[in-house]
């Protein structure tokens, strides 16, 4: 979310410039952008920290509402015990496996449904029903079918990922401009070639957008699943700490979720931008 005014100013600048210093200006702009972003995050973190501190002082109950200092101290303890790292890794592992499988299945199914009228007709009603069932509603069922181990959580994350990616991929196939397909056809492409050389690259941005949304869903689902049925992971940390009234541990878990989620999202955007840059231009 860059602010539109910035973007507009940048476009205006690009359009109206044309001096020889263009490349240097571009480097400067990038440096300036990074500096400003870091500054913004620093200011935001400081503002939140301050508000949090003030609030906790007012609340005056370290048990019910610990301040940043107490939370930080607890975070250090949890890290020294090794619990925080292991909980993060356990949750991440579940997310990554489920997200990978779910994205793959979702993308394949979505591309198939987007390309074939028959397949779309057959499965649309079922997909449209199941996608409206909250993944969290399946938690009890997943436990019955797959036990209390990893499989139950991973299956839930697959469910949370599949439909988002499927829908997005299907729309992506539909969004490939008809003239791109006609151009390929009149240059002599077979159906197979059209799919792999035109449709698939054309739909890729949509697949990726769906995956990015699904990643957020995966975080939500893993937390829910771990709160109800797990012995480890960030969701477990957050929920289980309630029994001992360790609100500071709960805050540590939530902060960790926010940070890990943000990093995962940024990494996903970075990787998809660098590896697949050319596909994002239509």
């Amino acid at each position: 979310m860059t602010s539109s005014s910035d973007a507009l100013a940048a476009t205006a600048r690009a359009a109206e410039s044309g001096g020889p210093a263009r490349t240097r200006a571009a480097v400067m702009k990038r440096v300036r952008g990074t500096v400003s972003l870091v500054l913004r995050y620093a200011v935001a973190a400081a503002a939140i920290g301050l508000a949090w501190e003030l609030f906790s002082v007012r609340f005056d109950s370290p048990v019910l509402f610990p301040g940043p200092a107490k939370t930080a101290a607890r975070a250090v303890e949890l890290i020294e015990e090794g619990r925080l790292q292991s909980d993060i890794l356990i949750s991440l592992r579940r997310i990554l496996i489920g997200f990978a499988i779910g994205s793959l299945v979702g993308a394949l199914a979505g591309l198939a449904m987007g390309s074939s009228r028959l397949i779309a007709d057959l499965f649309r009603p079922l997909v449209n029903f199941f996608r409206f069932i909250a993944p969290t509603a399946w938690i009890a069922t997943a436990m019955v079918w797959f036990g209390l181990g990893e499989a139950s959580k991973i299956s839930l994350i697959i469910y949370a990922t599949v439909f988002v990616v499927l829908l997005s991929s299907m729309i992506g196939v539909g969004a490939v401009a008809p003239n791109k397909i006609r151009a390929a056809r009149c240059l002599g492409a077979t159906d197979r070639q059209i799919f792999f050389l035109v449709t698939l690259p054309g739909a890729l941005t949509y697949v990726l957008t769906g995956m990015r949304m699904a990643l957020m869903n995966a975080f939500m689902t893993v937390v829910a699943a771990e709160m109800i049925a797990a012995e480890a992971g960030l969701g477990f940390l957050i929920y289980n700490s309630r029994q001992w009234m360790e609100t500071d541990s709960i805050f540590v878990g939530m902060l960790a979720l926010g940070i890990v989620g943000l990093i995962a999202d940024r990494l996903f955007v970075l990787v998809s931008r660098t590896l697949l840059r050319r596909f994002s231009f239509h």
Partner: protein
Amino acid sequence: MSATRKSFYRGAACVVAFLVLWEAGARLFLVPAVLPAPSQIAAELVSYAATGKLGYDLLMSGQRVLVGFAIGSLLGATLGLLLGSFKASQWLLEPPLQFFRFIPPIAWLTPVLIWFGIGESGKYVLIAYTTTFMVMINTYAGVVGIRQNQLRAARCLGATRWQAFRLVIIPTALPHILNGMQIGMANSLQTLVVAEMLAANEGLGFLIINSRISLSTELAYVAIFLLGVIGFLADSSFRAFAARVAWKYKLA
């Protein structure tokens, strides 16, 4: 046969095949505790509804979602409009918004339980937060993404800041507010289920988790089925509203 009818029959055939396979599979190979057959679920739906308890569960779940959702939508739209309209708040607000996006509303359940107890107010707060956040970031994005020429046109036609806000920014943000509400409703249902699983004695989420104790798997499936129906109905009504009532705000 027309193309739409053909699509319909194909879809219906697939649904029927799915149900038949499920029915046969469940009756031949599985016990109801693992996977009840569709007919058993339907029977349970009827008999449980007849006792009148289902109505109560639906009422409780519905009330929780609707109260929280209404508060959250109002709050989210207001915040999004205000925050999007001021440049300083854009600069300051985006980083924390990005951060809080990744703390799932469900994670707030634990602190909310500690602060508000297991009564109804905690659930309202949780659903309201879920909705507020989604509506707010969508509204905010809508306001920030407004076309500069539309604002400029208003200014050169003599609009005051307040007039520009009321007559240009709000109409532009409207489809984004609706979109945020649509996603917010879906997320609220997710949050609701978990909240009712962990901290309630009635409601659809409670039915699902309680089936493990009461050993009535059929009832859990009834609840799952109803959640799907509710989610579908909510989504369709948003779509219908956007298409019939708010359609002109979608247009460029």
